[in-house]
């Protein structure tokens, strides 16, 4: 039995067969090369800490002025 699931609450790994289907869907919908998708998804991940740090530093600077 292969450990499955990508949408459980806690720690369950995803089903490799299902994930293969999802990859095929992404390929057919987006039609982009794998490198482009890696860069795009990587930027999405990096954008989150950048946004959080921007808010944090902005709030800290504003607070110091108050």
């Amino acid at each position, binding site marked *: *039995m*292969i*450990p*499955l*699931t*990508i*949408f*459980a*609450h*806690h*720690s*369950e*790994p*995803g*089903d*490799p*067969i*299902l*994930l293969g*289907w*999802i*990859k*095929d*869907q*992404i390929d057919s919908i987006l039609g982009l090369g*794998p*490198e482009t*998708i*890696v860069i795009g*998804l*990587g930027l*999405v*991940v*990096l954008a*989150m*800490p950048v*946004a*959080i*740090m921007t*808010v*944090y530093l902005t*709030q800290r600077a*504003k*607070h110091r002025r*108050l």
Partner: protein
Amino acid sequence: MAENIKGNKLFYGWLIVAVGFFTLFLATGARNAFGVFVIPMSEELEWTRSQVSAAGAIGILMNGLTQPFLGRLYDKFGGRVVISISLAVLGISTMLMSQINSIWVLIGLFGFVSSTALSGASLVTVHAMIARWFYRRRGMALSLCSAGPSAGALILVPLATYLIITANWRVAWFVLGAFIFFLALPLALLIFRNNPGDIGEIPEGRISAATKGNTSGASNQPEPPLATQTWTDSLRSPPIWQLSGAYFVCGMTTLIISFHYVPFALDRGTSPGEAAAAFGLMGGLNIVGVIIIGFLADKFSRKNLLGTVYAIRFTAYVMLVTLPGSVGIWGFAILAGLSWVATPPLTTSLTADIYGLRNLGTLGGVSTFAHQIGGAISVLMAGFLYDRLGAYEIPFALAGAMLIIASIASFSIKERRYSIRYQPTLAAATGTGDGN
């Protein structure tokens, strides 16, 4: 706007929520990507699928078993320390997965080390920390954070897949681990604070008069009638059993689908592409559902919402088992998707409302342990029954029927009697407690 003693700036608790979301996004999201590594690792290292699956199964077991202990550590040492150390260990162990050449190392690293570390950077610990920062909008804060694992799966699973295609599985593991170690860990160290009092804030929605001259943390806030000195005190009252029992059923009904959804869909004649699309819709609706629940949880009775969520999931199971072909698959995807992640924030907020914050990490760990045990039992039961009956309808119907019990258990929680939201002084001052 959140109550804030420092004027009109953004309430600091929302930064905690953002980092909590990102922590769960990376930690749980990277974990969910394990499935895409199964085939390339098996092929290169000449392992059987069963061997790799054993590592995954041990990981699930360890993660469930260690939740109460990591929750206990949270209650003793605070979230900043426990979550940061867990992220460090998780990041390093994930990066070390890139060097694996032996199945025993995989079992050790993934099955034991990273699974234990994940318990320290999980919904249990992150929720327990956020609960200390929010009172009036606790439901929304916990729900926003609960969307992290689903969002992480939606982004990191495809990212890992394409990293394996463009480079190899070793690079993919290293990148995932590096994200955790170099992005999530610094944010946790910089921004996480155990209590609002640590930086001179008061919790959102709390009464200024109640904490006037006292900003030293949650332990000095008004407490609910069942507030516990030790976590074992809670075991003498019904709500923890009702919540954990319902969460046990939650685990049963989520993990059984996770493990047996694909073969069931194929048995029903659904095409692989359609099954993937339905599952993708389900993932997107996870996030929609948990945000809706967060909004409602701060306005209405949380136990009624929890009971309703289980009832909706029961309806989804009825559709899955009774409706033919892809109608059942799509109907289930929509209703179950909306209910899938709605239970953790409601369970945590009710636990905090009823038992207070002092032992919330441990109590959350106990509930999550019940969740994982329920999941393991249902997965084994479904496999056992399928081998004998040749169909999934019976095990799915049994698991679905348990949702009736979970729904009744949730509806019957005496929230008005035990929850701090309904205690006269706090409810009157914060405008909560309506709609029961």
